[in-house]
């Protein structure tokens, strides 16, 4: 267990964490402000990745593709909010789960219909193809470091928007008292559409950036969506700070677990069994973490709501 490996894996964990934060912040914002549970959030992640892949391939520019991905995701989000989601705000959570589950089916099968089942290829731009040398001597892809940078920049921007701007004030007001800000003359319907589109844009951004590392395919948003659920449950649903903390925690614990658990079991059992048990346990690790946290704090670490 060298220090070099540890540093490399910590940064891997951080990268997963920042991507999870982009997903989780949108989910938690939508729940905090509108009280809506949205399973179709992973579909915006997928829309962002597909739009980026298509536009990048056509124009040859990754940045143009990225912009297209974010805009496509935001537009899809706004459209979905206008047509379906706004009918669900006053419905029980069961209805919200089912309607957004229906949206997943529609988006996944629709995308499969349009683009086929085989994955699209999306490569990181060439000017980000190099490697950086980490403290300890390991070589690390620059693109992954850039992802972390973008994630941190978004987190800071989100903080500034929510705590320093008029829009952020309205969002916070919406979280604490919906009826009151309506009575004060804020156009709630517009605010809701805006918040929903904003969350979708962040998910699209995450999908586009991760799509360049992995493949762009139907269903790519679902594993991330479920991890994002774990994140916001750990962090406390509705809390951006909780989402940030939970995302980093889940990203680092998951990454380190997958590397170190098999090695740990190797110390006192045969190699083949150790790999099997270690891998199986590592896959369960963040859920165990979630169960332990919930056993002590049923509302998550930074509960924002009752």
């Amino acid at each position: 267990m060298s220090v070099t490996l540890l540093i490399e894996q910590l940064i891997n964990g951080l990268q997963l964490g920042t991507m999870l934060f982009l997903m989780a912040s949108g989910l938690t914002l939508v729940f905090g402000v509108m009280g809506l549970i949205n399973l179709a959030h992973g579909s915006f992640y997928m829309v962002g990745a597909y739009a980026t892949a298509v536009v990048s391939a056509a124009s040859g520019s990754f940045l143009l593709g990225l912009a297209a991905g974010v805009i496509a995701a935001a537009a899809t989000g706004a459209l979905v909010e206008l047509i379906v989601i706004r009918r669900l705000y006053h419905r029980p959570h069961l209805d919200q789960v089912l309607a957004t589950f229906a949206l997943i089916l529609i988006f996944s099968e629709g995308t499969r219909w349009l683009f086929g089942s085989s994955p699209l290829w999306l490569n990181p731009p060439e000017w980000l193809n190099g490697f950086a040398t980490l403290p300890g001597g390991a070589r690390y892809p620059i693109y992954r470091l850039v992802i972390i940078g973008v994630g941190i920049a978004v987190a800071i921007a989100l903080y500034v928007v929510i705590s320093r701007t008029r829009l952020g004030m309205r969002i916070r007001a919406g979280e604490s008292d919906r009826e009151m800000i309506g009575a004060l003359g804020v156009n709630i319907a517009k605010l809701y559409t805006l918040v929903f589109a904003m969350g979708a844009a962040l998910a699209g951004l995450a999908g586009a950036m991760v799509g360049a590392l992995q493949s762009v395919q139907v269903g790519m948003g679902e594993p991330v969506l479920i991890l994002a659920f774990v994140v916001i449950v750990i962090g406390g649903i509705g809390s951006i700070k909780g989402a940030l903390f939970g995302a980093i925690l889940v990203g680092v614990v998951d990454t380190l677990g997958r590397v170190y658990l098999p090695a740990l079991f190797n110390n006192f059992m045969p190699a083949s069994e150790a790999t099997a048990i270690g891998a199986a346990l590592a896959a369960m690790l963040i859920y165990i973490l979630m169960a332990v946290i919930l056993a002590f704090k049923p509302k998550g670490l930074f509960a924002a709501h009752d």
Partner: protein
Amino acid sequence: MTNLDSSSTAEPGVAQHRARWHDRKGLVQIALLAGLLLVPIGLHLLGHVYYVNLASKVTLIAMAAVGLNLAIGYGGMVSFGHAAYFGLGGYVAGISAYHAFDATALITWPVSIPGSDNMLVIWLAAIVLCGLLALAIGAISLRTTGVYFIMITLAFAQMVYYFANSWPSYGGEDGLPIYLRNGLPGLDTNDALTFFLISFAGLVLAMAITSRLMKSRFGAALTMARLNDTRLATAGINPYPIRLAAFVISAMITGLAGALYADLNGFVSPSMLSWHFSGELMVIVILGGVGRLYGPLAGAVLFVMMETLLGGLTEYWQLFLGLLLLVVVLFAKHGVMGWLAGREHDE
């Protein structure tokens, strides 16, 4: 609503709305159940084995949904993780058959237990193990409510899913075939009709248990826990153990259906544990009509028929399922049974 003293077993409204065989609801229910029983028998006589197996599939999915309906419909616990119990039941059947086929021990420590291909043993094991898993998951999840409960049950089911996926001994993500269908003493379970009748008996038993349970004091307490748990607590009954017990029974029913489902397909894989299946089970409960005894049956018939008919026309049939589901959720809240048989008294 009457107070929950020891002599009252159910609210008075229930008795007035109980289905009689000759009213609309009673007729629809009898038609559904008789149709499910008689159509496969007729098709068997005509020699269509495929349709008999399809009927077994409908029956077992309906049974799994009956289990989920007890949690969602009667208990108000929106579990998004019932695939965990369905899959665990399936894996019990698969793993036990695997060891019986290999003549190896299922567990060597602390005592050696051989595998078994006797369905009675497998069913018992599936029910007990699913009950224990649900007890652990429910004990933690039921400390929370609302969205938290939905997400936590989902997350726990994912945990089981990833465990099965990465545990290589029993096939990992490739799944585990059941080479010889498990047997039942005195019956030929390989006969499609016999297997269908076993499944049908399971479904009827599950529905009878649900019905009996909901007419008991326990059922009255569970209904009250859904409608107003403060009021239940005021009557001197702690809602938590009531909910937990209902959750465990619900998981046992779904798990038993899973054990039979694995035998029907001769195969068990992590896809039985996937969150998509949890979602589909919820869809079936809602399509049929939530909190209605015959709802899961109506939902399962509709779902499997759509899968078979639409799936034959287009490989993108889930797109249309999504659209239908959206319309049902947004505009037709009472499901197929609400539409066929009229509204339930407490809606």
